[in-house]
């Protein structure tokens, strides 16, 4: 199988006790040194085929954005491996990473924060082209930039404006153009439409789908809302507290969700002409702290169907049907049946 991105057992922690003084705590009349860390990503594995759209879904704090940023090496992973087109990029230096930079690009969530307010749009697009020497002269780079902007629906005569002169949707198009400027093969999109209005969301999603077809791209798509990714995804991974609890094709996840958390996410969605949200039973309690991870299944305290075993044993991922994996004790593996 030809994977463009293969992530194995990725882990990312953020130390809370970076300085020596911060790590000291006063407990029971004694001064003790303690290490505290936010366990943002706890062993995430997934692979994306060429030309595929893989989506990670989960609520705030589930580690989806951290996963995306670690994959693209904005953060250094603490553990695990990342392969891009078969090459190990887990622990390579910034210089070695440069040759992959043009192949993996990112689209950001906030169209207001992701563009440098002091740069003209044309400079924003030209910067990566010139830096990676994809053009021989400034004129050529400019022409390239215009072409990319036209592609995402920004007229070239608008290119000499500053970002604040554009609306949110247009800014997101500019952000997409910046990512496309380097002719990437994989685009990591971190909630690219969640800050936009509904009608604009649809425009951007359509644009992303068109670009994918036209330029033969692959996407790692991050979202907090299942409804958004339905149309764009080929496969979906549902994340909870830094772990993928369920993966499967879009079809499977929507028509045959297995994990109680996936079910809850689907049930809670408000629906036109329905009483989906109002009928939602609700989850117990709140998301557990990523500082002190639960012992068993991370979801067990909120789960409506939890068993005894859930509280002390971490469930293993198992294949339910073809390409549909669930980490949940409710489903006995094929071997056990």
């Amino acid at each position, binding site marked *: 199988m030809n994977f463009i991105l293969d992530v194995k057992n990725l882990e990312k922690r953020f130390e809370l006790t970076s300085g020596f003084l911060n790590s000291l705590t006063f407990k029971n009349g004694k001064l003790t040194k303690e290490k505290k860390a936010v366990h943002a990503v706890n062993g995430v594995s997934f692979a994306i085929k060429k030309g595929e759209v893989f989506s990670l879904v989960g609520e705030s704090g589930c580690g989806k954005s951290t996963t995306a940023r670690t994959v693209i090496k904005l953060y250094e992973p603490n553990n695990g491996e990342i392969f891009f087109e078969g090459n190990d990029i887990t622990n390579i230096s910034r210089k070695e990473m440069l040759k992959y930079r043009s192949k993996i690009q990112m689209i950001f969530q906030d169209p207001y924060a992701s563009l440098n307010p002091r740069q003209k749009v044309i400079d924003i697009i030209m910067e990566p082209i010139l830096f990676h020497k994809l053009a021989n002269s400034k004129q050529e780079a400019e022409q390239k930039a215009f072409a990319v902007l036209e592609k995402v629906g920004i007229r070239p005569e608008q290119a000499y404006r500053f970002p604040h002169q554009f609306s949110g949707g247009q800014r997101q198009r500019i952000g997409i153009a910046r990512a496309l400027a380097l002719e990437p093969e994989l685009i990591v999109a971190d909630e690219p439409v969640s800050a936009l209005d509904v*009608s604009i969301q649809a*425009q951007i999603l359509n644009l992303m789908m068109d670009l994918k077809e036209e330029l033969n791209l692959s996407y790692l798509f991050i979202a907090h809302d299942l409804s958004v990714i339905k149309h764009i995804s080929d496969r979906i991974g549902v994340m909870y507290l830094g772990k993928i609890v369920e993966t499967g094709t879009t079809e499977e996840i929507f028509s045959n969700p297995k994990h109680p958390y996936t079910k809850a996410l689907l049930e809670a969605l408000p629906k036109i002409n329905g009483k989906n949200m109002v009928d*939602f039973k609700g989850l117990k309690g709140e998301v557990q702290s990523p500082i002190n991870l639960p012992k068993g299944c991370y979801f067990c305290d909120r789960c409506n169907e939890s068993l005894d075993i859930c509280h002390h044993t971490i469930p293993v991922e198992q294949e339910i049907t073809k390409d549909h994996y669930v980490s949940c004790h409710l489903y006995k593996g094929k071997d056990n049946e």
Partner: protein
Amino acid sequence: MEKLLEVKNLKTYFHTFKGVVKAVDGVDFYVNKGEILGIVGESGGGKSITGFSLIKLIESPGKIETGEILFEGNDLVKYSEREMSKIRGKDIVMIFQDPMTSLNPVYTIKQQIEESLILHTNLNKKERHERCVELLKDVGIPNPENRLTNYPHQFSGGMRQRVVIAIALAVNPKLIIADEPTTALDVTIQAQILKLMTELVKKQGCSMILITHDLAVVSEIADRINVMYCGKIVESSKVSTIMNHCKHPYTRGLLNSIPDIKDNKDRLETIDGIVPNMFKLPKGCNFYPRCNKRMEECENKEPEYREYKEGHYISCHYPIEGER
């Protein structure tokens, strides 16, 4: 049905350096007693400003130009700031979008709930304490006795929004204005909070105006919906009418661009173009440049806001026929 609030030809303009922004431009609507009215639209539609105008929390350079806000028959536009402050937080309360910033971080939850009790009721200390516990219990906060003395940062986002709701409900208001109350929350939490709000509103018999960009959310809990675009109400009717028989092309566009999880189309339907510049609104219908049903007349003549059928108001020259 008895009308609790009636707004007539309300205009709120902002006089900025670049020109006048007609944030709310002549809206007419009403809220019945015990009813949930949803106001939906995209950003820049003027829905939040409408909410703020109702309690006259409009700061310079904004100004309520004309119109009437009849609350139980009294025109709030004519009220002085002093008179307004007796209504705000008592008869009309507001719930804001961001539960992280709408609570004061230096006071305990109890102090913040008590504040409005002290201001607007004659309860003594013991009664106030009991009321606080009761309120927290109502909004579903486990072990309210202990949590009263907590500070806002000790609560999660969803729990904080529950506290905000408890504060809003403390003095049995007649009207709650909720401005995107769940936008900052996760879907599972959103469902719980909205369900809670609906239940409490129905239980207490008060009315609510729910301002949101999410049509799916209002469709589930509101009784009637106003759809706003560029400061004007383009369509208003009962939920079922809006969802199944909407007549305005904008409403239809909004509905169609919502990804439906049961539907299997490859591309999403969109509304072309972008929201127009508020300084340079089109001469005729505001929606003209983006409308896929536009006619010549729409370019120059502004459509009138009229009653299309009983209880169904639109402002469009050429309403769409048929069902969605």
